[in-house]
């Protein structure tokens, strides 16, 4: 679907379920936010499932990404403010689910937007996300090596062999293609703002909404130990650790992530 957010056209996947159906008027409004150089399709294991399980799921292409109009925004704070605009456009408080850069956006949004953020799930992140200089340089040059480096680092060892939860698909091949097909300069900009953001721990300490943190213990881009200061700052958050996941749990262990989302959105 397409929606207007702050005057710009934004593309999103909704699991082919309209979010304005009367029967889901009171269902949780869930915004899924992707990471650097990626798009809405990183959530393909969750979006359609959520949409058919009593939520209004909206997996967005961030500005300048996927099929959304550009340009890409230049700071985590700016993207968090954009999430506020998204909430206004969709007409309600958001349950934000963010991955990597999207997790930083979610943290900043939850810390600064008050009750416009109903709850938060973050995954694939550390308290800081320094970017390997070789990756940043390759991205700055729009060199396909950047996609190759990221695809190699973001998945755990099992996923580098296979098998993919989706029959016949190559997980590293898919990740590489998503990054490769992002518009020129987008990955470089995203990585730069990830590396520059130093507000995760402060944001975590300020967050009061229900929060779940999902971490892959085999994450090499943001190693598990790098997330501990953030986990400590969040305090009240539910922590879910996945033993066989790397940096992208929503792709690598989709069943466990769906279970975590279910427990988060519909606590018994």
């Amino acid at each position, binding site marked *: 679907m397409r929606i207007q957010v702050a005057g710009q056209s934004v593309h999103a996947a909704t*699991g082919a379920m309209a979010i304005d159906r009367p029967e889901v008027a009171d269902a949780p409004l869930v915004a899924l936010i992707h990471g650097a150089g990626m798009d809405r399709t990183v959530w393909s294991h969750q979006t359609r499932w959520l949409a058919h399980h009593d939520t209004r799921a909206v997996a967005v292409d961030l500005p300048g990404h*996927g099929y959304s109009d550009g340009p890409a925004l230049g700071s985590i704070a700016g993207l968090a403010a954009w999430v506020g605009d998204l909430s206004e456009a969709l007409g309600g408080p958001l349950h934000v689910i963010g991955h990597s850069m999207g997790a930083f956006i979610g943290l900043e949004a939850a810390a600064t937007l008050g009750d416009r953020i109903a709850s938060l799930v973050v995954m694939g992140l550390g308290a800081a996300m320094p970017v390997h200089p070789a990756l940043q340089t390759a991205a700055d040059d729009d060199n396909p090596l950047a996609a190759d480096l990221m695809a190699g680092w973001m998945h755990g060892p*099992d996923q580098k062999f296979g098998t993919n939860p989706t*029959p016949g*698909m190559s997980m590293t*091949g898919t990740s590489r*293609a998503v990054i490769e097909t992002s518009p020129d300069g987008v990955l470089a900009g995203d990585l730069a703002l990830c590396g520059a953001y130093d507000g995760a721990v402060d944001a975590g300490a300020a967050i009061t909404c229900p929060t779940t943190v999902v971490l892959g213990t085999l994450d090499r881009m943001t190693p598990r130990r790098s997330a501990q200061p953030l986990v400590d700052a969040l305090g009240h958050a539910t922590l879910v650790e996945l033993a066989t996941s790397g940096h992208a749990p929503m792709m690598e262990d989709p069943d466990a992530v*769906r279970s975590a989302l279910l427990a988060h959105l519909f606590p018994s």
Partner: protein
Amino acid sequence: MVEPDHHRFDTRALHAGQRPDPVTGSRAVPIHQTTSYVFDSVDHAAGLFNLEVSGHLYSRISNPTVAVLEERIASLEGGVGAVCTSSGQAALHLAMATILNAGDHVVASRNIYGGSHNMLNLTMPRFGITTTFVDPRDPRAFDAAIRPETRLVFAETLGNPGIEVLDVTAVAEVAHSHGLPLAVDSTFATPYLMRPIDHGADIVIHSVTKFLGGHGVAIGGVVVDGGRFDWASSGKFPTLSEPYDGYHGITFTEEFGTTALSMRARAEGLRDFGGCMSPANAFYLLQGVETLPVRMARHVDNTHRVIEMLDAHDAVSWISHPAHPSHPDHELAARLYPKGAGAILSFGVHGGREAGRRFIEAVELASHLANVGDAKTLVIHPGSTTHQQMSAEDLAAAGIGEELIRLSVGLEDPDDICADLSRALRASQKA
């Protein structure tokens, strides 16, 4: 310099798509000889049928053994995914049926496998899909043949039987300049010798029966999805970019993005047309893929030895293989195929059709049959077999003369292959 952290090609040929079975510890890929899979719950079943969750539900659509082969070939080709089929021809049909509709048009190389030529020239028109055939050596010919209703450009990376070398980059640029995808049949090349997606192709098709399987024991095909083509922006591919009632209004590009083609090919194509690969065949073909790198290197070495022998033989009127300096694509092949341009070659025998017949009947080691890419050396006379349905005019246009012998060089000792061919060539000249 920092290197990407991926297993290299030879390692992926053995391991991609599989971990040892977590229950039994089985190191080999198990044959999951089952039609169907027990659901965890009613909700799980509904989710599988509605593409909400991933997994296996019925072996016509996916099977764990077949999925290993699919993921392995996708990895070797550098694609996002793959869908295996019952044959190479089923793969070509699946690719076309997934993106084409009645009224659409294809621009294809005229130098392709006879069965593919038949499908495009004779069969698909019955379903409203027409094809214009062009010279694969001329990218401008592809460009000139493209019409407003064209939706696909198709060629073989190494043509059949003349081994015309497709300039994949140039033809991909032509296709992309019109908002069209390039699909290639890369059966003769295999990803060991050349990876078309790296050069701009969008869909790669294989008869896995041939070199990938490598042992002539099982029929199979595969469609590899490159994942780089933008199916949505042009509006030319509604099967991928518009809502589909078959799954409650799903739009494949919106939900799956780079994997839209392979997801629709499986979810609709295998579900409705049913041209799936059996798990037993996937197992047989996997055994071949595991040794693809070492086999292809030996196939190419043996081919070069055979070319040397044929080149020096008085009974041979011409040789067509890109490794031979007389081949029109010799330089292009050196650039695109640094490891060699495959193990299929054709040659002419002095004396025309009768000499060709005597040659075929005189070989003892080489097998006369309708296949290529076996571990064993194979010969055939295309004019009377694989391409017999083509008219004399089409045969001539495809460069298939009556004297043409196609040879698929096997893995036997090269001295034995050369001795057999040399003796049969001498016999061919005895009227």
